[in-house]
């Protein structure tokens, strides 16, 4: 068995590859999707559905969307303690690991985890560290759109006899991120040709925009922290319903405000037009990097929960002048792809005939001095390995010393796309000693070698003397040492984390409280009775009674929430 994890901004999933195909593993609540949220309740940390409910009713006690700050020093305050995004991600990963182990009765150790294609080295390291803290061995990281392509490409066969290869564009609009990648599929080879993305564009941004409209039209302040959770909850529901309906009615109680309004799909699309337009840049970039025109694409594949929005679908279809393929569930496809990748890495016999080649999502290069208006200026970026180069790859360039008699060259290595180095991420530097030469400028040859596990090797050779210098870029600033990982793991052992069973009860309790807050007078009376009954059951501590009641209550809550947005 091989495992793959989709660590998402809003939801995370774990999948297993066995018997020649990938399958998703359900969590304790029987759902494939575990919200990537951690919350504090009665001094204990809860992860998943329960935490998401807490985040919706009491955002101060919960941390969500922490994937967006991976690789930065941002910390989240939960009660007395501060947690960084690596620790929070580790908690989510550990919950997935435990759920999978409980479901399969086997240990989960080696995994492949997916990351957005635009994640830089620091962010990738942070994900690896999170895996290590969670007690997992991260075999490989895979770009999310690549994973999607992999899950999709396994079943793909050209529909035209003359065509022996298929070009597919994977359009992945997730909870917090937008990724595009173009793949060519032929003879069992899945070749990623280009990927591009936007780090801060996802379904959450659409929910946010919608919540502002609901606030505006019902005369409450969108900035009011007390009303925000309720607003977001309504917006999320309305957004989902608007994917299938042309108009929804919103009726709920928000604090002292009565909300009663109707919202049309066209109004929603009007306020989110700017967000939709931001998808154009990554789309154009991926096409131009692959050297293709929209007409060249044979298949448009939509991935990610937010791609269900009609506006997003329409945008993609219009840009590529074709209708999207309906296939695998857009929420599941990345996780399934990670499991396929895990099987490929382990050279599973079932995938003997399948090979995948990936590209480097970033440009790698060095700082150089350029002549501008006749004067030498520093800070220019010289790419060595260009983005969307098939990896592993090795590229060489020659650089010249600026002055006669120069005795050393400092090579500063960067990752990024901006033409000025200060906007890119510095990976490291090396110093090259030159022989003293007053006759001519010394020339060095610089070689970058980048392998599939993300390891960059830099070799420099002084042409006149043949002296070679070499460094490996792997230990970046911000990466945890093994000792630090160990400390973090111990810290996690000492955290008070609610056991899986209690977490389910917390989930129900929070849902009930939230429903009560939003209900209107009539429903409130009924709900009070239900809450009393549930608390009684909790006190009696009969596991069977609690289990049955939980099921009924979930059913009831689903119906009730539907009445707010119709």
């Amino acid at each position, binding site marked *: 068995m091989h495992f793959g994890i989709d660590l998402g901004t809003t939801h995370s999933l774990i999948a297993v590859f066995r018997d020649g195909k990938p399958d998703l593993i359900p969590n304790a609540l029987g759902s494939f999707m575990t919200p990537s949220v951690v919350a504090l309740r009665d001094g204990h940390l809860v992860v998943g559905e329960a935490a998401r409910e807490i985040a919706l009713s009491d955002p101060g006690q919960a941390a969500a969307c922490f994937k967006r700050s991976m690789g930065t020093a941002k910390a989240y305050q939960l009660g007395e303690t501060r947690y960084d995004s690596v620790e929070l991600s580790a908690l989510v990963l550990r919950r997935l690991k435990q759920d999978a182990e409980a479901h399969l009765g086997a240990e989960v150790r080696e995994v492949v985890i997916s990351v957005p294609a635009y994640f830089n080295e620091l962010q990738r390291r942070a994900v690896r560290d999170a895996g290590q803290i969670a007690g997992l061995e991260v075999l490989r990281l895979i770009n999310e759109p690549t994973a999607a392509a992999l899950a999709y490409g396994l079943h793909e066969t050209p529909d035209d006899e003359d065509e022996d290869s298929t070009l597919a564009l994977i359009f992945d609009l997730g909870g917090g991120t937008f990724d595009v990648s173009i793949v060519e599929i*032929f003879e*069992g080879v899945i070749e990623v040709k280009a990927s591009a993305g936007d780090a801060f564009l996802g379904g959450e941004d659409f929910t946010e925009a919608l919540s502002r409209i609901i606030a505006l039209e019902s005369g409450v302040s969108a900035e009011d922290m007390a009303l925000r959770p309720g607003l977001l909850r309504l917006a999320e529901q309305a957004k989902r319903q608007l994917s299938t309906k042309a108009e929804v009615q919103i009726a709920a109680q928000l604090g002292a405000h009565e909300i009663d309004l109707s919202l049309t799909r066209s109004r929603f699309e009007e306020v989110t037009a700017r967000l939709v337009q931001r998808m154009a840049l990554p789309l154009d970039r991926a096409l131009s990097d692959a050297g293709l025109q929209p007409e060249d694409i044979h298949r448009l594949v939509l991935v990610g929960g937010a791609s269900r929005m009609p506006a997003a679908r329409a945008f993609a279809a219009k840009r590529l002048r074709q209708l999207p393929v309906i296939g695998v569930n857009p929420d599941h496809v990345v996780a399934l792809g990670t499991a396929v990748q895990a099987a490929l890495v382990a050279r599973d016999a079932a995938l003997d005939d399948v090979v995948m080649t990936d590209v480097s999502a970033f440009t790698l290069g060095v700082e150089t001095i350029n002549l501008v*208006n006749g004067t030498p*200026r520093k800070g220019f970026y010289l790419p060595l390995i260009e983005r969307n180069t098939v990896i*592993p*790859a090795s590229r060489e360039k020659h650089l010249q010393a600026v002055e006669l008699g120069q005795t050393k060259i400092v090579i500063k290595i960067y990752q990024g*796309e*901006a033409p000025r180095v200060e906007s890119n991420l510095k990976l490291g530097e090396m110093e090259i000693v030159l022989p003293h030469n007053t006759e001519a400028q010394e020339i060095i040859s610089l070689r970058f070698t980048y*392998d599939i596990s993300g390891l960059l090797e830099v070799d420099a050779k002084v042409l006149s003397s043949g002296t070679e210098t070499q460094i490996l870029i792997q230990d970046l600033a911000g990466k945890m040492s093994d000792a630090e990982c160990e400390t973090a793991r111990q810290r996690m052992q000492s955290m008070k984390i609610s056991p899986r069973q209690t977490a389910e009860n917390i989930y129900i309790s929070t849902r009930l409280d939230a429903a009560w807050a939003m209900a209107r007078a009539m429903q409130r009376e009924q709900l009070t009775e239900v809450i009393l009954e549930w608390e009684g059951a909790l006190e009696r501590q009969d596991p069977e009674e609690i289990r049955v009641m939980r099921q009924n209550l979930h059913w009831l809550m689903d119906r009730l929430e539907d009445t707010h947005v119709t």
Partner: protein
Amino acid sequence: MSPEQDWPWSALGLDGPVDGKTLRRAYARRLKGINQATETESFMALRAAYEMAQRHVADVPPPAASSEQDAPGADVPPQPLPLPLQAAPPLPESAPTALGFAALANRLAPDHFAQNPAEVLEELLHSPLLLNPKVKPVLQVLARDAVRHVTLCPADGGMPRLPASFPAQAILGLDTQFGWLSDQYAYEAAFGPDMSALMAMTERLRDQGSSTESDLRLVLQAALPPLLFVIVFCATLLDLAFRAPDSIPIGVFLALIMGYCTQQAARSALPSLMTRHAWPWATVLLLARSLAPAALLWGLAAILHAALI
């Protein structure tokens, strides 16, 4: 023929040029025999051969369907966008768009643009025409020419600059639309290898970020040596007045050193203060600099005087 002569075909297990389908099949067969994680060298060699072979496939058999249109294949190197033909811009589909386009293109014409960059950029960045994938590349070329036209390259080889009327906010807007500051390839595709416009735009953004605070820091750095110099200068005067003039006072040496430092400091800080129009500070430094030769002379005179006596 030797295997070297047959490359790239030999590396793919082929005897010579083939069509795309056979090439992909040969590549797939070889690829499946290689472990990418461990056999890096073989993979890279195979990949290099495949990429080279693809270019030759692209210009060998033109299938009937795709030959009529010049599809940009892998063999076409990226080129800077061609200069726009002002006379014949491609007409957008509908009449209102065409009119809007003509008006905007007119306003973006270099001479018109130079008169009021802020207003024209505002109009461009809010134009719905940018949403049209067919029109956007044309607008990019027009905007590129406009920016290039207003970029001032000082004759002495100084830093290229944008006029004061070019708002920094618009630079960020242009970056969002065209990726000029955030994407190396986008910049090069638009402007080619000339980095003047890039420097000018980055400088303008940097100026925007700087305030009096950093002016003050600059001045403090530069003014510390002259301040010390003034103190030492006064001390030397007092020293000479009250002590026997037959010994060389230590202050004289210090005056020499400080005079030199002032000159250096003023040289480094003055130009940047002046380009930022921080006139009060620049005046202070100018005064200090004009005093510096006097200090040097004074020091020399004192030494001579002491030596003669």
